[in-house]
């Protein structure tokens, strides 16, 4: 059976690549316009580091525009991921060098199709240049660059790897500076280059192994390990590094990395929690993790409780994978692993060589990140479309909502909130409202959407009675969304859910007052405020909880929603109480508001001061200080 499958795959690959053959060799090429320039990185401790990095020229001409301009480029460390498509024979890079040193490009393990280097210079003057072979009779000349150079301050050069006869090799590769690499690579001149064997197929089938299926994957995550010695960076930035008359640091022989980075970030920078924010990953899926180490030190990526299948090293596929939770990732090497997470949740992924501090500080730093594995109910979003809007999803619709739900849960918000947010959005959409459903139909829609069942007539009658007592439809929706039955249904399908209390409390204000999913930047800000408060003390948590409630209620975004008094009370129950209102309470507060006996501000304060809300604040306090 397995043999059969691999045969089918081979046939599939052959058919899929037919059109590529017809196109002919040279068309099958990847082409990029790359710029090297200086940038800075501000570390979490405030230290500003001079970096050298790569960026893609936005309009592919290398001609105009500086960093950040519309037709310019954005420098990053590591540089952008360059992809060579499965059928591409060659990779061409048109390169512009805006750095003060000459730079050349080098891909470890790949030969340039045309290399007019190496470039030799007289040492230490570095004033005379020879290219090609060693200058005759000169035994003092040194190689400065492995390949032809792009001159400093705007010089350009083109590099081509692979030929029609010997195509660019499949796998994970490091592109880095080929000029004085001991200096330039650590400054940040490195980026990942990846080429797949086929669509979602990292490496080819090994025909000599019966049943071999190649290395297929569902998702791909790129992680790059590297380090910074700030003193060397400062010296390079000041022009006092190396064989110069006023040198403060002559070489990297005594390099002491003080910052250790994953994807150019050190803990606790936002992009490391989770490290796969941009890569939706659900339990049971095959995640291809491409590990790159363009740094100068060995690191030991460690997935804590999860085992990976190590499939390739240095773009060479193993015949059989090795199952390990960690491995040695040496400087200049790449490793490709398949991780199939058995459970949803956050898993630490870190360097078990323990480069876990920023410049020696006591608090956690360095190469620490978290992988988030989501849980989803397959087909559930489509079911919401059918239940509420009575139609199939529009193109891209499911992906959009799945993306919103992914971001929300990856930011640590209860995954149930994603479905609640989806339901709120659908039931309040113009499309649904224009259906003018009757109350009983609305109630049936709520049952079918949130609880995935048809209600009995007494159940419908009960809720019609509740509506008649003065409650709004959205109040009903909240009662369903925070019902025990919904929780049971969701957890039966998503698995057990544990969320830190501050995550849900912050999200309550986005859902309840702004009626939308949390945005990443805003949520991270408030979460960090709340977590700082948890480490300060109970009073601070109470104060921040009040502050966030008042700021959201007083925000221009909330004001622009032009909420009526009814809706305002509805929102308070939603945001502050996280539940559907009881009719007695709802009518009572609404009357006070309508009669002008309380202001909205006063009512908000009543809700904030209520024992019910303070109990939830107590949960946030009880969750404790997260270091």
């Amino acid at each position, binding site marked *: 059976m397995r043999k059969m499958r691999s045969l089918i795959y081979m046939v599939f690959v052959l058919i899929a690549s037919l059109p590529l053959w017809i196109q002919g060799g040279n068309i099958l090429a990847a082409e990029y316009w790359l710029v090297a320039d200086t940038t800075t990185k501000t570390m979490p401790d405030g230290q500003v580091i001079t970096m050298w990095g790569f960026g893609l020229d936005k309009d592919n001409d290398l001609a105009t525009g500086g960093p950040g301009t519309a037709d310019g480029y954005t420098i990053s460390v590591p540089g952008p991921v360059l992809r060579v498509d499965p059928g591409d024979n060659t990779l061409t890079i048109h390169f512009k060098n805006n750095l003060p040193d000459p730079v050349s490009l080098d891909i470890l393990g790949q030969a340039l199709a045309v290399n007019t280097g190496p470039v030799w210079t007289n040492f230490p003057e570095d004033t005379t240049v020879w290219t090609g072979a060693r200058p005759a009779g000169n035994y003092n000349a040194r190689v400065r660059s492995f390949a032809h150079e792009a001159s400093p301050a705007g010089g350009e050069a083109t590099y081509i790897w692979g030929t029609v006869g010997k195509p660019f090799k499949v796998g994970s590769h490091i592109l880095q500076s080929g000029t004085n690499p001991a200096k330039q690579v650590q400054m940040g001149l490195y980026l990942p280059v990846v080429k797949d064997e086929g669509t979602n197929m990292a490496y080819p089938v090994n025909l000599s192994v019966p049943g071999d299926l190649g290395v297929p994957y569902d998702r791909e995550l790129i992680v790059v390990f590297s380090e910074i010695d700030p003193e060397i960076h400062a010296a390079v930035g000041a022009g006092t590094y190396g064989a110069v008359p006023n040198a403060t640091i002559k070489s990297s022989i005594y390099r*002491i*990395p*003080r910052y250790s980075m994953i994807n150019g970030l050190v803990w606790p920078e936002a992009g490391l929690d989770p490290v796969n924010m941009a890569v939706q990953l659900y339990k049971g899926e095959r995640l291809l993790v491409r590990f790159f180490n363009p740094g100068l030190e*060995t690191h*030991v990526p*460690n997935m*804590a*409780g999860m*085992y990976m299948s190590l499939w390739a090293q240095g773009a060479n596929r193993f015949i*059989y994978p*090795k*199952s*390990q*939770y*960690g*491995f*040695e990732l040496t400087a200049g090497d790449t490793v490709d692993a398949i991780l199939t997470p058995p*459970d949803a949740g956050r898993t*630490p992924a*870190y360097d*078990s*060589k*323990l*480069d*876990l*501090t920023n*410049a*020696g500080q*006591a608090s*956690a730093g*360095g190469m*620490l990140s978290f992988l988030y594995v989501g849980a989803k109910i397959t087909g559930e979003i489509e079911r919401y479309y059918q239940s509420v809007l009575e139609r199939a999803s529009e193109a891209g619709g499911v992906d959009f909502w799945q993306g919103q739900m992914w971001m929300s849960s990856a930011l640590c918000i209860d995954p149930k909130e994603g479905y609640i947010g989806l339901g709120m959005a659908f039931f309040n959409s113009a499309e649904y409202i224009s259906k003018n459903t009757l109350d009983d139909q609305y109630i049936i829609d709520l049952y079918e959407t949130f609880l995935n069942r048809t209600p009995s007539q007494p159940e419908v009658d009960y809720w019609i009675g509740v509506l008649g007592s003065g409650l709004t439809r959205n109040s009903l929706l909240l009662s369903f969304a925070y019902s025990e039955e919904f929780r049971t249904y969701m957890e039966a399908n998503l698995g057990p859910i544990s969320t*830190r209390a501050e995550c849900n409390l912050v999200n309550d204000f986005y859902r309840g007052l702004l009626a939308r999913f949390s945005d990443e930047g805003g949520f991270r800000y408030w979460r960090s405020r709340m977590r700082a408060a948890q480490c300060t003390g109970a009073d601070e948590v109470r104060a921040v909880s009040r502050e966030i409630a008042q700021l959201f209620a007083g925000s221009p975004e909330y004001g622009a929603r032009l909420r009526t008094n009814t809706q305002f009370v509805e929102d308070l129950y939603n945001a502050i109480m996280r539940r559907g209102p009881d009719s007695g309470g709802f009518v009572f507060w609404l009357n006070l508001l309508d009669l002008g006996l309380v202001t909205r501000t006063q009512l908000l304060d009543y809700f904030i001061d209520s024992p019910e809300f303070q109990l939830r604040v107590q949960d946030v306090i009880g*969750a*404790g*200080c*997260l*270091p």
Partner: protein
Amino acid sequence: MKHRLRILQAVLIFGVMLFLGSVVISHAMIDGCQSTSFNLVAKQGHILTSDGDSMLMWGYALESGCPGESPVKHPAGVMLYPGPTMILNEGDTVTVTLKNELPQQAGNVSIVFPGHKVTASGGVPGLLTREAPPDGATTATYVFTATEPGTYLYRSGTRPDLQVEMGLVGAIIVRPSLGPLYAYNHLDTEFGHEYLYIITEMDPSIHRQVEMGQWAFIDTTSYFATNWFVNGRNFPDLMADPFVPWLLTQPYNCQPRMHVGDKTLIRLVGAGRDLHPMHLHGNDFETIAADGRMLSSGGGAGPDLAWKATTIRTIPGQTADVMWSWTGEGIGWDIYGHSGGEVHPAGAPGEGIVICNSYVPGNPTTYFDPYNNEYCPDHGVPFPVILPPRDAVTYGAFYSGSPFLGGQGELPPGHAGLNAAGGFFYMWHSHTEKELTSNDIWPGGLVTFMIVEPAGVDIP
């Protein structure tokens, strides 16, 4: 003639040894605490290093010793470096509790168990897991099921760049359901003896900063190790017995021994921060597993992806299992000094039978004597060197006085005589040679010796 006498002497000693008690075949097993419940306390304590120093450490203590251990070996409430080696059986559900009696400035403490799915509760939240605050009372609890056999480690998951350096590490051995003399659930992983190598290192300046309370000066990015440990001891302390009273906080030794032809499993644990190239003299080894997973192509195969080498790097936070054996094959001379025609001695297996009498040149299945594993093609091949007179050379402390396995000879007056059974000593050490020192004093650090003993010697 003298040579003959020595052989006779050796045979006599063998006979006595056999008589004294190794009729039952013994298997050296790793010392540790077999339990499913470990109540640990993070504590301060001091260890002795072989350069003559006494260093402050943080370690995991067993709050009330090892449950059910008799006679008691693990002292209750004493800081241990490394922490207790947890011996588990496949399928065990293990509960580990942790309290923290370290000084306030040490902050919280925790345990991570790489390769295991752990449920943590109690204590206070931490980045990697739940943590025990330094109040001596609050307990963090970790529960996991040892689903797969193999070699694992545990260490601190809180500020580990400092806390692991300070000593909060330990090993876990999960025995397979196939039986305790197997590394994994496959017959090809059977062993006769097993030894543990928990490799760690130390930068003494950090320990002094901790001891002197210079917390603000601690910077683990400039860490520079000068002391190295196997199972918490340096050479030569690691050759002493386990659980000796003068090394109370360093209970475990590392003294591998085996008989000719035995299979020995070495469980390597990279518990510290650095990589160490462990070089095993005497023969190639086979790496049969990494991170507690047999190197196998699957489908019921054994360790068919095992790789042979003489040196293996221990990797921080990871484990490897290697299998080693030694028979004298290919050495080119008779390791027993036989001249041919001798019989297996009285009381030994094959008593009275002529050694290597079933050997047929050209038939590899007959190359090893079935009773003492002697490599028969070399049987009776003379020693290729004329031995200098006793007083013309200096004998090393581990020389028995005879170049032959089990042989004894005259030793000069005052010689230490540290090779009672005439075994062959093979140095197993880090090949980063500076690590063969303890704070610049040689010999020290990562030096161990495998002693290949002649058949019949008791190996407890």
